[in-house]
């Protein structure tokens, strides 16, 4: 599939067995993709195959199963490297998810490089996982957390960013695409400015990696974190990309097996990259299946996904605009397939339940972005978020539920 006109969502749907079921007596429509994505059969089968054919601990065995498992695990690392165009597999660290990736940077890079008075700059649209690790780091080091404001349409205030940057800035943390507002942030331009100021930039890629092509060398970001489970891969997997020049100077985050070259009670020598940051038995199954997920996505093509989801988002926005009661939260000119909304006097939780009763899965709540809620002075939102298998019919179903919601609370 190399060409937008050939994008066949119906055919893609068929690869996802979970979509073929009824919920509350209605055929399921899954529009909660920003929370987690469903998994194609190739991923599910890869997991069974792993456990039925070559499950084994890796890196330390000479027997056949262990060699096979090690080769598959390391093959996934190469798949990820290629997928984000990292220079070397040494720069690819497998973890549990985006959250752990950011915590690793905060703990390992942060604690060894920051001191009282240094500044960490994040945006007002960050997910809690790109806020709390920095708050914890500030508590320990005495560094100060500064926040780049956002405008009423949910765009980053780029001028404010420039003004906030200074020689005190040591780390810039930015979400590539907001999970609540859909806003796509100008990471490449931000990286340039951060580097000019002498800071490093940490990108939360949890909501971008599955929607458009990411090239870490082109972005020139220092760290890039994402989650496998939002990329049509298994839960419990995540990737932290880090520039080799930084990773190699950083102390380990966790200690244990596999991350050492040699241990004595007097002196322990750490292993080389990337193993230094992968202490203990990793999620072997998960990493191997994540490789299969990325191959699946590459088969469709991220550029195709990008245009298709854009088109579907336009359709969503159009359909939803038929209801004047709906207030869209987040309308940056550059945004992805996320439609968050509120309706006056109807609480998102009630909206979510009515969607559920109609078989349509959406997410409601603060979406782990409480500062965004506060910024827009709302307690919570309802969010429709798109994935590769969604269709216009799914959007029609969602729009029909809105009608029902308005009727119930008329």
């Amino acid at each position, binding site marked *: 599939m190399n060409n937008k006109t050939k994008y066949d969502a119906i055919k893609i749907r068929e690869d996802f067995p979970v979509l073929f079921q009824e919920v*509350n007596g209605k055929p399921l429509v899954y529009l909660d993709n920003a929370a987690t994505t469903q998994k194609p059969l190739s991923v599910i089968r890869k997991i069974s195959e792993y456990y039925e054919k070559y499950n084994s601990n890796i890196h330390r065995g000479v027997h056949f199963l262990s060699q096979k498992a090690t080769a598959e695990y390391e093959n996934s690392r190469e798949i990820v490297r290629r997928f984000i165009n990292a220079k070397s597999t040494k720069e690819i660290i497998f973890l549990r998810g985006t959250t752990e990736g950011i915590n690793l940077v905060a703990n390992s890079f942060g604690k060894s490089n920051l001191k009282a008075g240094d500044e960490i700059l994040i945006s007002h649209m960050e997910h809690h996982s790109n806020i709390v690790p920095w708050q914890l780091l500030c508590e320990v080091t005495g560094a100060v957390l500064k926040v780049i404001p956002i405008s009423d349409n949910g765009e980053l205030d780029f001028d404010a960013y420039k003004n906030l940057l200074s020689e005190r800035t040591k780390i810039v943390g930015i979400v590539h695409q907001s999970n609540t507002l859909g806003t796509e942030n100008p990471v490449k331009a931000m990286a340039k400015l951060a580097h000019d100021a002498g800071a490093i930039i940490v990108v939360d890629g949890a909501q971008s990696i599955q929607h458009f092509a990411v090239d870490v060398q082109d972005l020139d970001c220092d760290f890039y974190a994402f989650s496998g489970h939002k990329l049509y891969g298994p839960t419990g997997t995540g990737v932290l990309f880090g520039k080799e020049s930084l990773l190699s100077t950083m102390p380990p985050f966790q200690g244990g097996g596999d991350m050492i070259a040699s241990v004595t009670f007097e002196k322990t020598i750490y292993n080389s990259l990337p193993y230094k940051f992968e202490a203990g038995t990793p999620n072997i199954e998960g990493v191997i299946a994540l490789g299969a997920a990325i191959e699946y996505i590459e088969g469709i093509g991220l550029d195709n996904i990008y245009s298709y989801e854009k088109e579907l988002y336009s359709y969503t926005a159009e359909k939803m605009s038929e209801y004047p009661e709906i207030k869209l939260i987040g309308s940056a000119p550059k945004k992805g397939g996320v439609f968050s909304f509120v309706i006056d006097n*109807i*609480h*998102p*939780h*009630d909206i979510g*339940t*009515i969607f559920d*009763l109609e078989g349509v899965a959406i997410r*409601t*709540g*603060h979406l782990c972005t*409480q500062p965004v*809620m506060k910024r827009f002075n709302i*307690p*919570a939102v309802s969010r429709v978020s798109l994935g590769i298998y969604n269709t216009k019919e799914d959007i029609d179903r969602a729009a029909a539920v809105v009608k*029902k919601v308005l*009727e*119930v*609370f008329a």
Partner: protein
Amino acid sequence: MDNPLREIYQQVILDHNKSPQNFRVIENPTNYSEGFNPLCGDHIHIYMNIVDGKVEDISFQGNGCAISKSSASIMTTIIKGKSREDAEKYFQKFHDMVTGVETTPEEEESLGKLLVFQGVREFPARVKCASLAWHTMHSAIEGKETTISTE
């Protein structure tokens, strides 16, 4: 409206949601507590005046979904004028009902208008919404200062 929807969003609930009773602040209450549902951001304040073991006045403030708001509203109408012990008994009964503890027909009868929340027990994610006000009232009576959280 079809059936499962009607089961949870009964008219009484919708009415109380629109026009909640005792939705106000009591200045200098004898008892007070704050409740919190981190899942959905629901947040409630319960104010009470308990004099000689009797709930002379009770009110609430805060924002929440239709279930939590109507539950708070209906609760205040039931608890007002009751003894402290009766309030606690209602709390227990309500709790049992929404968490699906077996109830006898007599108990059901005694629940009165609270029965409209029976449908909630089919929606595990919403049980917390229905019980937030009750838990907060319970902690106000017990005089605990801590913020309570239903999670």
